[in-house]
């Protein structure tokens, strides 16, 4: 391996403090949407909407590491290890924020910019997906298809940053990530199309409205879509059948290989974005397949119950993820296309079943 010299972080202009950087971006974005929105709507409902939107985005950003901590805890219990405390991800983040960043000599500005971009994309996605209140002022900003694009944008920046330094591991990880994601993305889109065919709209609030608040109907096509979505989200979140989040073994790692060069606050931002991505995917899964309990538009009285059901569903989902990770082995890298091909096929079958049984 070629030797590299490292620069202490003192020579790099200090970036703005983290939490503010993340929320400021999403808040700025939501303010601009809200400005357009308020032209048509007016009055107190608007203010409540904005407050709820801010609350939901902030809650997602702050609670995301907690979900990761819960999954890690369940995993440790199932493996018979002593579990780390629930707040372990927060401690890791605090530790990383207090460290000095070490950056390679030949790093371009893109390398420093990428963590902020990735975190901003995930915060944006967390603001769009309905977590406990439906149809918030920010959700018309992007429908399900644009949401896939937001995830893809974050991934492109991560892959570019990984290849930026020019180490073997970085480009290896980036290529593997692209291999996995170009197979996962169509499957994710197909899952969204199945849900959209049922509700006749690609907007997430309309999908949730149709599935949760209209007359209850069993949709067999959604069973296929749910299995496909689970498979895709394990691949996208670098979880076990495709990637192991806790390995640094060069033969198998995908996500970890890409972020090897990052340290301190940059690494903290990326870790936080990973937690946020898991949270957003869980919220997305809940919104599509278990939407009962999400408060309808303007229904403030339902909010406490909505928050409670969200907590229960997230805990159950995290435990299920840990259980499936404990009982399944990581696939060989070249089995991953087969796994994701199966996910795509299931999503397509869901669409076909929709036309046969539900049309």
């Amino acid at each position, binding site marked *: 391996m070629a030797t590299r010299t490292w620069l202490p972080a003192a020579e790099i202009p200090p970036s703005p403090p983290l939490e503010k950087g993340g929320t400021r971006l999403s808040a700025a974005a939501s303010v601009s949407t809200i400005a357009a929105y308020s032209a048509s709507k007016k009055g107190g409902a608007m203010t409540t909407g904005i407050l709820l939107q801010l609350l939901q985005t902030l809650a997602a950003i702050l609670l995301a590491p907690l979900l990761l901590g819960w999954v890690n805890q369940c995993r440790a219990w199932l493996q018979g290890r002593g579990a780390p405390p629930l707040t372990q991800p927060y401690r890791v983040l605090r530790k990383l924020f207090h460290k000095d960043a070490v950056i390679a000599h030949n790093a371009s500005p893109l390398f420093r910019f990428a963590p902020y971009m990735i975190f901003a994309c995930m915060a944006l996605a967390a603001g769009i997906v309905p977590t406990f209140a439906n149809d918030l002022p920010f959700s018309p900003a992007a429908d399900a298809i644009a949401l896939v694009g937001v995830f893809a944008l974050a991934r492109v920046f991560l892959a570019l940053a990984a290849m930026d330094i020019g180490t073997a591991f970085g480009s290896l990880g980036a290529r593997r990530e692209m291999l996995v994601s170009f197979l996962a993305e169509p499957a994710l889109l197909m899952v969204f199309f199945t849900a959209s065919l049922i509700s006749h709209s690609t907007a997430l609030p309309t999908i949730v409205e149709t599935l949760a608040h209209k*007359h209850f*109907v*069993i949709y*067999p*096509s959604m*069973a*296929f879509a749910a*299995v496909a979505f689970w498979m895709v989200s394990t691949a996208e979140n670098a979880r076990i059948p495709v990637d192991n989040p806790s390995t640094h073994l060069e033969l198998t790692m995908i996500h970890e290989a890409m972020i090897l060069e990052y340290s301190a606050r940059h690494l903290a931002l990326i870790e936080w974005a990973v937690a946020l991505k898991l949270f957003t995917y869980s919220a997305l899964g809940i919104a599509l397949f278990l939407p009962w309990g999400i408060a309808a538009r303007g229904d403030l009285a339902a909010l406490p119950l909505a928050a409670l059901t969200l907590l229960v569903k997230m805990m159950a989902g995290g435990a299920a993820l840990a259980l499936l990770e404990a009982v399944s082995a990581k696939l060989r890298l070249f089995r991953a*296309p*087969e796994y994701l*091909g*199966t996910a795509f*096929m*299931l999503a*397509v*079958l869901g669409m*076909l*079943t929709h*036309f*046969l*049984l*539900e049309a």
Partner: protein
Amino acid sequence: MALTYHLQVVNLLAALLLLISFAMLSQRRIVNLVTLFAWQGAALSASTAIVAWSTGQHHLYWSAGLTLLLKVIVMPWFFYRLVRQLDVNRDVEAMLNIPTTMLIGIALVIFAFNLALPISQMSGTVTRSTLGIAMACVLLAFLMMITRRKAITQVIGFLAMENSLFFAATSATYGMPLVVEMGVALDVLVGVFVLGIFFFQIRETFDSLDLRHMEKLKER
């Protein structure tokens, strides 16, 4: 949607049958294949019982019970024992690789759905929309028999096909007369036991359950 809840459950179980058919197609291990076969029987039995309850066709309870007894308990148990005795729980040799098989499977599903559309419009039952799924399951079981080399997986494919034919009969005409159904059940049971004996004979003669060895017409 005007469907009642139990019919929606029947539709869900039909979708589950299709899902299990695809899972069987993609499965590499024989033991998992047997487990999936048992689950297919369970879904079939549950859907038959629900159809019986919602339409008042009492003879369907008998067929649901028979399915539960034979295809969920007796045959899987027999297959588990066979697999243990024959010691064949290694990777199933598929002739095509799994993704190609899956793609062919999707094409078969589209074909079956199109084929079943005019037939199901002629049928007067409430469960007619599931006929397409039943046809698709038959074709997928056929595909499984074609793409596998081991004798035991071919027999499981044959039984899966029998399952889906039974489901097709239930969804198109509320099942066959009870005498016919009992006859078929007995036939299948005896057939499985006879084939079980065959497996041992095949292995004794060829030292393997791979059916490629039987393609040569040469005296040993």
